């Protein structure tokens, strides 16, 4: 089985990409994730199963609840997940540099 290809297929689906975005900020239960979609609960469960099988999501047991969270290691296989963070700072610093190159002290 080509796992890498499966990962890309997994993120090709808009609902699954939306799920990844949701859990990027905090770990969530299946119920909390499903509440964000109009889709039927079993459909969301199926998406969670696919994302978990290809290891994009990690499950964590907390009491009786199972929480889903992003699996950073797997995300690195798709793209270096730090790159957008670096790009964000690079854009800001480029702006800073441009602003200050035109800086005229107030008199």
């Amino acid at each position, binding site marked *: 089985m080509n796992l890498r290809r499966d990962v890309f297929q997994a993120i090709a689906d808009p609902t699954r990409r939306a799920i990844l975005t949701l859990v990027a900020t905090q770990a969530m239960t299946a119920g909390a994730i499903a509440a964000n979609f109009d889709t039927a609960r079993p459909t969301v469960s199926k998406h969670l199963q696919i994302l978990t099988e290809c290891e994009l999501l990690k499950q964590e047991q907390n009491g009786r609840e199972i929480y889903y969270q992003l699996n*950073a290691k797997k995300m690195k296989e798709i793209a270096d997940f730090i790159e957008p963070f670096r790009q964000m*700072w690079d854009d800001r*610093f480029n702006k800073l540099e441009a602003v200050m190159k035109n800086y005229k002290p107030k008199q």
Partner: protein
Amino acid sequence: MELKTRIHAEDGMQEITVTREFELPVALLYKAYVEAEIVEQWMGTKVLKLDTHKHGGYLFETTDPRGNKHRFSGSIHDAVSERSITRTFEMEGMPFPVQLEYLEFERLTDDTSKLTMHIVYRSVAYRDQMLQLPFAQGINMAHNRLQEVGINLK
């Protein structure tokens, strides 16, 4: 092309280091951090408060395309002109703990300078989540763009 901004993030550590060299004298680089009107220009945010002194603090506010306001704030623990700023940072109303930021401003030549930002997070997990935020937003934006042009990936 060599990357101007570098991120150093070791696996399993609850900190990162961001470094950047500027074609600016260190005085101008430091000024970009302490003058409200200038911060507004390069951060793209409203500056409601900016007091870069020991026991000082700051409060920034951005408005997203939907009109929602987001506040970012922190305390200034120490500031040495043209050398360093030590501050905390938090995104208000978000489930992320406060982070600690050590900013060092360094003169390289008369016309160039270097900024080193050492950011310490509450845990390794929170650090990884913060690093993933722009990535997640990127997925979201790409998704929206695809929807706009009506491409169906399935």
